[in-house]
């Protein structure tokens, strides 16, 4: 073996800090695991227990230590809350702007200056901005309940009996649901325009690709909701739940990139034909080719990711 340097040694401060964090995390989890027994007690028993614990703590001076510890936790929590409140403010401002843009698009459409597509698109933007506001509000609730940053992973534990991950997924589901509704309407309009010759057939393929994007995004969120439910039911362990989530995301990328690659190939062919007729410049063909290559690379990467993740799942199960 080649010589190892002590730059790869943990510092004593880090070792102590992490040990203390692990110990307090284990104690917290063990306290939570014990909690249901308290719930079964009568109010009188619970009150008696609280009095005994309170007197005991006061007797040994533990209350002072607990108070200092609590103050430290409370300070960290306040800092997080303040950071997330700033995000919430920004999200609310974005929502207000999206609502104004939507109203303006509606007005333009009403007086015959704008297209119905634009109104629908702005409607999606409003729904997305609203979902963002709701997600940040949920993050804030999680921070207040747990005192730490929100944990979005599928294997994150419940916080005070509340499933924040599941609630977040329900909000995320509303985004592709709304988008799907809109892109389907747009697709119908495009079909009519192509049939009467006011739009090119390629627009139909673009709009079909957007419908597919929304459908696949919705399927992915639904799959994540199922994974989360199985994790909470104890049918999946944490590692497999997270890997299954990554698997769903990689599969989503493959499903949405396939049609885009096909569209990009057609676009290169179309521009090449136009270039031969002197209607397009070589640089347009080169740009379209680069775009196609980028999409193909992304697709290959997604396929590779999926294989790796599935292998990891198999290895984990063994």
């Amino acid at each position, binding site marked *: *073996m080649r010589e*190892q340097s002590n730059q*790869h040694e*943990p510092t004593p401060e880090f070792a102590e800090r*992490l*040990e203390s964090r692990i110990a307090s995390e284990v104690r917290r989890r063990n306290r939570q695991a*014990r909690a249901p027994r308290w719930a079964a007690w009568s109010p009188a028993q619970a009150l008696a227990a609280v009095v005994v614990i309170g007197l005991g703590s006061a007797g040994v001076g533990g209350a002072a230590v607990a108070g200092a510890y609590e103050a430290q936790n409370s300070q960290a929590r306040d800092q997080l809350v303040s950071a997330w409140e700033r995000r919430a403010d920004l999200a609310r401002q974005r929502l207000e702007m999206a609502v104004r843009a939507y109203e303006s698009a509606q007005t333009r459409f009403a007086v015959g200056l704008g297209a119905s597509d634009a109104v629908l698109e702005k409607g999606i933007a409003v729904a997305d901005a609203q979902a963002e506001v709701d997600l940040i509000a949920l993050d804030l609730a999680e921070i207040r309940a747990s005192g730490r940053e929100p944990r979005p992973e599928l*294997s994150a534990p419940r916080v005070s009996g509340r499933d924040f991950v599941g609630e977040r997924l329900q909000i995320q589901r509303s985004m592709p649901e709304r988008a799907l509704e809109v892109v389907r309407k747009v697709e119908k309009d495009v079909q009519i325009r192509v049939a009467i010759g006011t739009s090119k057939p390629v627009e139909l393929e673009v709009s079909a690709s957007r419908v597919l994007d929304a459908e696949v995004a919705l399927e992915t969120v639904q799959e994540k909701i199922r994974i989360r439910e199985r994790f909470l039911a104890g049918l999946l362990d944490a590692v497999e739940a997270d890997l299954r989530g990554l698997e769903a995301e990689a599969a989503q990328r493959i499903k949405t990139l396939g049609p885009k690659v096909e569209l990009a190939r057609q676009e290169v062919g179309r521009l090449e034909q136009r270039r031969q007729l002197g209607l397009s410049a070589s640089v347009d063909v080169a740009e379209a080719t680069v775009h196609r290559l980028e999409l193909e690379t992304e697709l290959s990467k997604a396929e590779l990711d999926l294989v790796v993740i599935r292998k990891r799942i198999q290895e984990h199960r063994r």
Partner: protein
Amino acid sequence: MLSEEVLIQVYRETLRPLYAFVSRRVGGDRGLAEDLVQETWMRALTAWPTRVPDDPAAWLTQVARNTLISHFRRQRPELIDPALVEVEDERFSPVAPDSAVIVGWGLAQLRPAHADLLEAFYFDGQTVREIAAARAMSERAVEGRLRRARGKLKKVLTRMVRRE
């Protein structure tokens, strides 16, 4: 319930090798190594609700590896200087944080077979002989595979330089 004493014992026994494993892969960047080791342990606590697995060190190493891959897939290096990553040069070693991060990012994009071999060579400091012995292969076969793996890594990094 998980015993605090048992867990702290496991923590003390595994911290140094786990930290070294992560630190070598991030070129000794302390802040990043500490974040990733902490994330690994937080995942362990979630995954071990009642008992510690039979081989916690192996478990932690595997989770740390996945955590590193996730990190490098999320965090694309901002700038790749080709001079920092002459991976086809046999004397190249990613000891500095910049080159380790670039190589770590590149390995996260490779097939596991190639990535594992390069990881053992670059980050675990294993010689060709040690790699061959651990995998029941001839030294010549390992050299060939290392050469091909370096070529793949070079391709991934070159593609990224072009996309900058």
